[in-house]
């Protein structure tokens, strides 16, 4: 069963792989630009790490619209849960 908590943990892991966020507590409300200083290159890198975690169908146009970590989690919960099931990914 894919829960918000499980997806959040995986998204946080993907963020740590994609950019420098050492020492920053990340939760659903964390804002990419305001709290993490994220730029467009970071978002592209994040997209690649999300694809590794959740399958390769995260649309770039969707990724560019992410403002908060919660946006990513909800996107995956809403549209991509089947990809997680197929890839057999474990949290």
């Amino acid at each position, binding site marked *: 069963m894919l829960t918000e908590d499980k997806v959040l943990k995986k998204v946080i892991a993907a963020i740590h*792989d*994609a*950019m*420098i966020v*050492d020492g920053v507590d990340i939760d659903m409300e964390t804002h990419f630009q305001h709290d993490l200083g994220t730029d467009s290159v970071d978002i*592209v*890198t994040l*997209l*690649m*790490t999300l694809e590794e975690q959740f399958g*390769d169908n995260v649309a770039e146009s969707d990724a560019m619209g992410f403002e908060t970590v919660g946006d990513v989690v909800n996107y995956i919960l809403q549209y991509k849960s089947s990809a997680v099931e*197929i*890839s*057999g990914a474990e949290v």
Partner: protein
Amino acid sequence: MSGRRVVISGLGAITAVGHNSDIFWRACLNGETSVESIPQHWYQFWQPKSTCWSPLPLPDYSLFGLRKYDLMQYDIASLNAIAATKEALSNAGFEVVPQTTNAARECIHQEDPYNIGVFLGTSLGGIWSLLSNYAAHCQQPLREYLPHGEQSNNLNSDLCDVDRALLSPGKINTFGATMSISNAIAAAVGIKFGIKGPVNVYVCACASGTAAIGNAYQAIVRGDIDMAISGGSDYAHDDFGALFRGFDAVRALVTSQNDPKSVNRPFDSERSGFLYSEGGTGVLILEELSHLQKRQKHGIAEICGYAESFDSHSIISIDTEGVEIRRMIHKVLESAKMQPSDIHYINAHGTGTQVNDRVEAKIISDIFGRRPLVNSTKSILGHTLGASGALEALVCARSILEGRTHACVNLDNPIEALNFAVNSEKTNILTALSLSYAFGGHNAALLLKSII
């Protein structure tokens, strides 16, 4: 600015026989090589004349402070350049610390970033990234025929064969363009270490590393900068063996079918070509002498001359008279006010091809006679292309520091009566000449001496 002296203060290396300069140097002294059969799956594409190579095991990049986003954004040639630079800076006694404004990047503690340059050579740049992305791009229509996800377990046997034949990654890397460009190697190092001085790449095939170090030396002598990160890096890998095939097609590679350990034989009468190396990286930190002295550190060796020339003869073959190579050697000696008799050791280009070794041995014999020790570091590593000159300069520096060098491996029947190194025993090495020549006709020579 005349009279400025340039010293080598730090060394870094990623090679097939070791992932740091000390391990590489010890492997050289012990004559350790790494030669294996080429990957079996390459035979489905063509029948190669050469059947062995020297593969490059990749380092654990986390040991060099590289993180996953670095691995996603840079070609392996660039990652290895960063890793070797990290070692070389530490070896030179510099403290590398995170930048205050960006923890993803580092800087050299207490050094002016505008006073430091990056001068790196490469033959093929980010060719691995280019070719893997190209393959993924071309194969995309084929992949559309293949089911995805768990259904792949149920493919019929024909589709399984297709799936296996598609060796490339399943999709394009978003950073493929910037991973592939040749200047990325120097740019990656410049960005990672916060360098603000001149940052350039030198692309002249197998002389690239030597040319990069030589140009760094000249920039310091001119007074442009006081310190440089210099060297060369190449990663000549692709999943399908196409790069290897290119060199195999022109009969440049070893063709002997004997024991793989014995096929690489520079300057030997039984030589049959050069041993293809999957890649390597060598980095040397250069400093103006007073800059080093202010830090109260000791240098490894001094660079006292650099010269280059161009054959204007053939894109693929050395001028058999060696006219421009001879001119270059005299020029580098003159620049340091030295005579041929002053040279104790020559690290030859020594590829192991029929023509190169014959021409080079004759040139050395004519100019230097039998006095200087001669070896070829390519007898250890094979040909690391744009990294070779840098790794050979590294060997020259360590040879001067320790008063000994490595044997010319597999040299049983020398083609010329030169003073080839047959062991790594202590001897007198106060000066060293490193020679590099390249496809296209580029020649480069570095002259080193002990720091007095």
